[in-house]
């Protein structure tokens, strides 16, 4: 055995492990023992996953590799000063980036081992035999909650279908309902037999493609009783059916009630249930003029995941638990291991309690801190990531509020001027006037994560006049030199007191905003 053999064999083992660890090569050294070399892979907090990866890697390397049966994972003897340079941190960053898009395949190898429950524990409800409308802003955890319910179905062998509505984004034709029903039918057919009836239904739906919208919808309605029977047969064979509709809001608002109406005609009283997610302000489950769709709470129960910044302490704990779970999965003791003081608190404010934004910001902050030669993630690096996040939100707007970009930018500009230039405070009060177009428009800015709710309604001065306490997104003033003098609302996330809220300046939408929203 030569030094060259030891190095070659060690490299083979580390490379084999890297294949299963996002190409990240863990630290490795050879312990020279009386009975020969022993391979030691070092990890800050070894988790079960690393031992599994080691075993799999050992199974795949050459038979004569010195470390085929003589290697282990050890806890690092001492914590390095620069923790951002650790392979575990690189793995953490990659894992955070991967977890930003949640769909039916996320964490599919170990979903329940990695899933973090929602703040209010909606998991027990969403799996029950009922229809649900799950609301929350982008990144609040809607798809994760749907995925939780879907994986429960999978675990129990129950039939389900998952429709990602992004595929149908901006569709405003009646055939979108046909396409959705057809997709559901395809997925459910895997739980039953590909019978003649299935083929006949598929062919019936396909024929609709060549018709005009009105004829196509009528044709679909004629097929509904047979579709209902087909669902019923699957229920009898396999148990309750669940249909997951993710991001309903991206379809034209006019078509949303119609899609739900057609699906509900099939599932109603048929031991089949609809679980729908969307951004509340852009979701229209019920058309009150046509009396079609899904009406809450009679037809579906509403689960609201997003409480903005009204409970920042709870949000802080939730975000910490998600980050820590990912950190442990990557061999770090927790996220604080690579963070400086105050980072988590700042993250909650900057992400405005939206879990996915927090993960994204933290991953970006790792990159920025590393590039600046910092040893841990700092508040400065979180701030720098925040301004990039604002750009991302502006891009998201094109999907969530298509066609409204200019109006949103204009109103946002007015609020930004009020906060950053005029008052130099990032929080403000807005009088609650539900009939007022400007007030309603600002609620859409909340849905788009440009403005965040600190309190749903306080009466700071005159009785009978209630105000919403709001905060302009951090991305518009932190990390930007020109806006450094803005007085930030609170340092540590905790439920704000009435005294704190009363001191906030009152923003009154002026003539300019009114003219924009009235357009």
């Amino acid at each position, binding site marked *: 055995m030569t030094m060259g053999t030891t190095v070659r064999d060690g490299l083979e083992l580390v490379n084999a492990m890297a294949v299963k660890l996002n190409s990240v090569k863990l630290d490795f050294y050879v*312990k020279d*023992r*009386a*009975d020969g070399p*022993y391979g*030691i892979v070092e990890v800050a907090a*070894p988790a*079960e996953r690393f*031992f*599994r990866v*080691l*075993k799999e890697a050992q199974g795949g390397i050459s038979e004569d590799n010195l470390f085929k*049966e*003589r290697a*282990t*994972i*050890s806890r690092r003897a001492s914590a390095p000063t620069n923790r951002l340079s650790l392979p575990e941190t690189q793995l953490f960053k990659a894992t955070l980036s991967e977890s930003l898009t949640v769909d039916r395949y996320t964490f599919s190898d170990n979903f329940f081992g990695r899933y973090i429950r929602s703040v209010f524990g909606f998991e027990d409800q969403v799996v029950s035999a009922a229809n649900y409308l799950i609301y929350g802003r982008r990144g609040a955890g809607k798809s994760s909650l749907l995925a939780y319910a879907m994986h429960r179905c999978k675990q129990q062998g129950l039939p389900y279908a998952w429709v990602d509505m992004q595929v149908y984004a901006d569709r405003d034709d009646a055939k979108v309902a046909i396409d959705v029903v057809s997709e559901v039918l395809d997925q459910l057919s895997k739980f039953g037999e590909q019978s003649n009836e299935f083929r006949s239904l598929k062919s019936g739906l396909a024929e609709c493609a060549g018709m005009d919208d009105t004829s196509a919808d009528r044709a679909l309605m004629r097929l509904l009783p047979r579709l209902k029977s087909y669902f019923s047969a699957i229920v009898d064979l396999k148990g309750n059916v669940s249909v997951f509709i993710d991001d309903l809001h991206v379809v034209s608002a006019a078509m949303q009630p119609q899609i739900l109406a057609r699906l509900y005609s099939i599932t109603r009283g048929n031991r089949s249930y609809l679980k729908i997610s969307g951004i509340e302000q852009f979701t229209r489950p019920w058309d009150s003029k046509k009396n079609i769709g899904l009406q809450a709470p009679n037809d579906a129960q509403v689960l609201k995941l997003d409480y903005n910044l009204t409970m920042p302490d709870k949000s802080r704990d939730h975000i910490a638990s998600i980050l820590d779970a990912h950190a442990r999965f990557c061999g770090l003791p927790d996220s604080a291991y690579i963070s400086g003081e105050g980072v988590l608190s700042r993250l909650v404010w900057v992400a405005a309690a939206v879990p996915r934004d927090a993960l994204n910001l933290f991953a970006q902050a790792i990159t920025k801190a590393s590039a600046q030669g910092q040893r841990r993630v700092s508040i400065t690096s979180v701030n720098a990531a925040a301004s990039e996040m604002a750009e991302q939100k502006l891009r998201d707007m094109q999907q969530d509020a298509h066609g409204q970009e200019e109006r949103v930018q204009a109103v946002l500009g007015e609020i930004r001027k009020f906060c950053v230039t005029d008052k130099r405070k990032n929080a403000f009060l807005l009088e609650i006037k539900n009939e007022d177009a400007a007030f309603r428009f600002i609620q859409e800015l909340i849905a788009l994560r440009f403005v965040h709710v600190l309190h749903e309604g306080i009466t700071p001065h005159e009785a009978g006049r209630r105000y919403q306490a709001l905060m302009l997104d951090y991305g518009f003033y932190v990390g930007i030199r020109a806006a450094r003098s803005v007085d930030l609302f609170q340092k540590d996330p905790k439920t704000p007191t009435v005294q704190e809220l009363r001191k906030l300046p009152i923003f009154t939408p002026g003539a300019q905003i009114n003219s924009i929203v009235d357009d």
Partner: protein
Amino acid sequence: MNASSTKMKEPSILIAGANCQKLVRNLSYVLDAAAVQRLHDEVNRNVLALYALGEDHLGFAQTVPGRNWRQRVSRLYYGALNIKRAVTLHHSGDFSTDASDHKKIGNLPPDFPNENTYSTRLTNLRDDRNIADYSHLSTELDLVIPLVDAQTLVVDFREHARSYLQSRGLTL
């Protein structure tokens, strides 16, 4: 005849067939439920005795002063080995007194908690025990698992094994 054999010679459930759990399964169609239960009880009695043997070694290891690192590592290993044998006897019926059984220290049931971690760490402990018992050139610094960590490993393994066997209906 007393159903409890205390010897590893005939008659004993452990040498009645290559695998006693398989034996019981394959006899259950000719025996009545009470007889099958008596066979299960006899297997379980052996599982408990193996577990107790492991605990005995572990208890002794904990009294060995740190300066006697060789003896301490050796007893910790035998503690873990016998507890592992209790687990596999109950799970799959595997039992052997052959020397090659040591190589199977890492073969745990797939549903055992942290199966991969224990599989690797117990194999490492076996390698440490080998140098502790047989290598005159080795020192305590050669250990892959430091003495204090080895004790934590075996104590944790004992706790997980206890919960695992309890979850399978044994009273420990």
